């Protein structure tokens, strides 16, 4: 199963953290540990890393073996999945790609700021892909439509409650005023050939 999903930026600040195994210790320590592990690996090495040292930190019952870290960097963000031995490594790598593509669809050229200001939405999207540490859906189209359905349901309930509100709930992708801060737009998909071809 998947133990955790994390997103770091290049300076090591976690931008998303979701643990599927209950944490006994301070998650911050764990995240720092993971970031140290992967940041020390130069580019060009493989995307998988055996991490027996995380066993204790994850506090999974019965001393699970084979904790592996599968990670992939996209420009300024690094996506990290901590998984156990029963997951196919390449499968998880593909799943990271699916996650990124789903974020990209939801936010139209996702950037780090989206993850900050729409943290709840990011969690909702992740919930459509992984549930309780298990892969729920891998089809980007399905994920996107599930996310949209969610937004619609939310909007309906909001406008039902606030009939006078105008122009609210413009959906994700409508950047708030603060995002005038220059952001590394387009860092994502263009980096990898073939994404645009979809």
């Amino acid at each position, binding site marked *: 199963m998947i133990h955790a999903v994390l997103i770091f930026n290049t300076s090591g600040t976690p931008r998303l953290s979701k643990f599927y195994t209950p944490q006994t210790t301070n998650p911050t320590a764990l995240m720092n540990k993971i970031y140290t592990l992967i940041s020390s690996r130069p580019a060009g090495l*493989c995307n998988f890393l055996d991490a027996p040292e995380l066993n204790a930190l994850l506090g999974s019952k019965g001393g*699970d073996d084979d904790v592996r870290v599968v990670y992939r960097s996209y420009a300024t963000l690094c996506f990290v999945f901590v998984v*156990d031995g029963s997951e196919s490594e390449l499968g998880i790598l593909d799943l990271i*790609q699916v996650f990124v593509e789903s974020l990209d669809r939801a936010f139209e050229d996702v950037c780090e700021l989206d993850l900050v200001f729409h943290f709840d939405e990011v969690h909702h999207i992740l919930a459509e892909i992984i549930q309780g540490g298990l892969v729920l859906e891998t089809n980007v189209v399905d994920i996107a439509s*599930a996310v949209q359905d969610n937004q619609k349901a939310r909007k309906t309930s*909001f406008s039902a409650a606030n009939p006078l509100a105008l122009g609210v709930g413009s959906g994700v992708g409508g950047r708030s005023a603060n995002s005038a801060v220059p952001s590394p737009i387009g860092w994502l998909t263009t980096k990898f050939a073939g994404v645009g071809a979809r």
Partner: protein
Amino acid sequence: MATNMRGLTQFIADIRGARVRELEEKRINKEMANIRKKFKDGNLDGYQKKKYVAKIIYTYILGYKVDVGHMEAINLISSHKYSEKQIGYLAVTLLMHENSDFLRLVVNSIRKDLDDNNEFSNCLALHAIANVGSQEMAEALAEDVHRLLISPTSQTFVKKKAALTLLRLYRKHPEVIPAAEWAMRLISLMDEHDLGVVLCVTSLVLALAQDHLEAFQVSYQKAAHRLYKLVVDREYPAEYTYYKVPSPWLQVKLLRLLQYYPPTEDTTILAALQKVLETIMQTAGTTPRNVQHNNAQNAVLFEAIGLAIHLDTNSPLVGVAAQQLAVFISSKETNVRYLGLDTMAHLAARADSLDAIKQHQDTIIGSLRDKDISVRRRALDLLYSMCDTDNAELIVGELLRYLQVADYGLREEMVLKIAIATERYATSYKWYVDTILQLISTAGDHVSDEVWYRVIQIVTNTEDLQEYAAKAVIEHLRPPHCHESLIKVAGEYPLLICAAYILGEYGHVIANDPGYSPMEQFHLLHTKSPFCAAPTRAILLSTYIKWVNVFPEIKAQLVSVFDRYRHVLDSELQQRACEFYALSTRPEDDDLLQNVCEEMPPFPERESTLLMRLNKKHGDTNDKRIWNIGGKDANIERRPTRRDTLARSATLMNAAATAIPPSPSADANGDIMSSLAGLDLTSPSSAPPSNPAPEPEKPAVQLTHTANTDKWYDKLCYSNDGILHEDVQVQVGVKSEYHSQLGRVAIYIGNKLSVALTSFTATVSVSDTSALSVTFQKIPASTVPARTQAQHVLQVECRGPFKTPPVMTVSFMAGSHQSMTLRLPIIMAKFVEPVTLPAADFFERWKLIGGPPREAQNVFPITLDAAGQVDTPRHRKIIAGHRFHVLDGLDPNPVNIVAAGVLHMSQAGKVGCLLRLEPNKEAKLCRLTIRSTSEDVSGEVLALLQRHLKADATL
């Protein structure tokens, strides 16, 4: 939604704007104080609560401790507004963990949402259970989740979530899920049209099947069928292609599922799988340029190779795979190297011959120096797995050399593996001792206790080794072997421990050789003792007391050591020293010391503690490992346990079968039930055929009965075509033809409903697979359209005498999930070929065979026909139906019948059978005599015929 909450956006912006940590903390503290105050004042509307809870979540995500908001989050869950509910659930899943007391309070809200008509609420609730499901939740809600999963009205996205939620609950609290009972219903979901659902259900089945192999047996066939459709027929919705590969995740799961079962014996399924694997490997021959495409393709390929290895390590497919792997391990792409080595280790762990891998030994050894630790680890696993007596010296040598520069995290495991490989593949004692001592002295700290325990065990149990070992340890303790710097101050020093023990036991053997005198031995050990920790010193003391016994010449020195140690602080050392001191200062003629210091007896043979330790490291994971790292023998041991689980779960299967609502049975025929009892689906029936009473503890399969079931079945026993089963929904018909030991039986499934039967599954189980084989020619299609008939052809082969007819289980969805268990009219008599014999021949053979035991005879009542006469036409029909040739004119009495036939069996050969039936009109009795060259056959043919000739047999 964040954009809707201006306060939240402002809060996040403020925190981002904070230039230093203190400012950030100040801002957060201010906000938290504000929230606390608001919560305390109460009277908040839903929007405000939502906003504050969202702020709390954000604060929590930043890594701050939060202690408020739990109750508000729980309130939000029961809100009617989706947006508030959603934030509430988000807070619950993030802020609470599965042991949180707050969870008690949400069980009811969650149940309400599960029962809600709004699917989005269902989803939120499922998601919450999947994330934080506690024991209490599992008990209370598992049923509801299951209902959502199997309900035909559930939307696909609900089904997916429900499947995974169930899986999560099962992982955490397996006792809550009646897995075997739900098996058939869950497996039928693998036929869903939506691949997303199939993926989730497969994950669920994958987990359940590991613990309930037997109950989930059908999933094997389903998985094979689905793979065939995906890979060979390329039948799947377009949106499920991921970079041109059809749903790689699903393929990987299915391939994985197939590896949990022992390789199938069903030739049809096997052929389908071969085709699937071939196709996957062919497509993998091309390397796509796109990274994503390549990844997905390889993910499937590596799992496929895993399955190919699992099915048959000698198949040509594995040969192709080995070549491909060889290319992979020297690939430029690190990921590919990593996975190539991993899969090759799997191959090495299972293959009979390691030749294909040994060709690449140099490359693999080179991989130990890969720049990436992940690759190095895999190379280590592979080298360990491919080690055998031929290459052990080379590989162990390489590993030892590498050990000196290996990463610290890797060393302990390496030491274990080297120690095992050395022990297992040692060709000479000398090499073993040298290597293991070198290992212990090189690895120092990383040597776990098990390693030196094992060395001592082996040395103690091998007499030839003792002298050499004693000398070798001394050499290792002497400089330059033993460099002072290797001894960490006050650290454990396994080499010294090992040496101390071996010298204590066997030091006297070498004491007369120059350079190994008692004094020298003592000096060597004792000069090291100041550097050691207490446990090591304790062992040194024990060695000294042994020496007091065998080396009187150094007794004075030894006693003075004990004397000094009597005053150390460590209680263990002190106690030993005191006792040893007292023991060694006893009078000369006392033989207590001698008795105490007797040489150690050999250790009882037991499993290597090293292996136990290594395997422990791999035990107890969520998904069981399919193979262990290590050579072939390490994996063979795993098989029997698998089998055991299979056999044990047969009882569960029975439980599942009895769960089928019993239909009114026209005639509770004890005979049939008892002949079916002992239907053990896995192990070849061990009951000797001469023993008609089946063992009572073996489970019986509950057959589906309708009013006519037995009549139809009996009729089919002596005819080739007819109806086997009929109810309001389906009709099952049989057409069969037999040629000596082979047969083809066509099963016709007629759907009488105006809707299609979906998730159609048919499986045949044979109690004694060594005597009879029954396989489907093709994997049955999963749908039977409305008002049509589907034909499934069974290939039958009789290999030896058998008693129990095969049982076919049919299950399908028609409104609800249903299943039937039917006996197939495939009995031993079907493989009899009629023969004509002239009278002389018949009598000659009749006499030749003689009486019991090769004769079987019984007298039983018969019914007369309407005219009160012996019903000869019926008797003739039954006997001819059992494929005996009725020989007219041999018996002078016209009501008597004699007949002959030859039973064909592919393995047990041919058995001639002669038969004589003597009815008696007055007594309404008849005597049936069977003589054949095999007593098993005589008995069984008698039983078969008698069943139909007997008075109460249904016509």
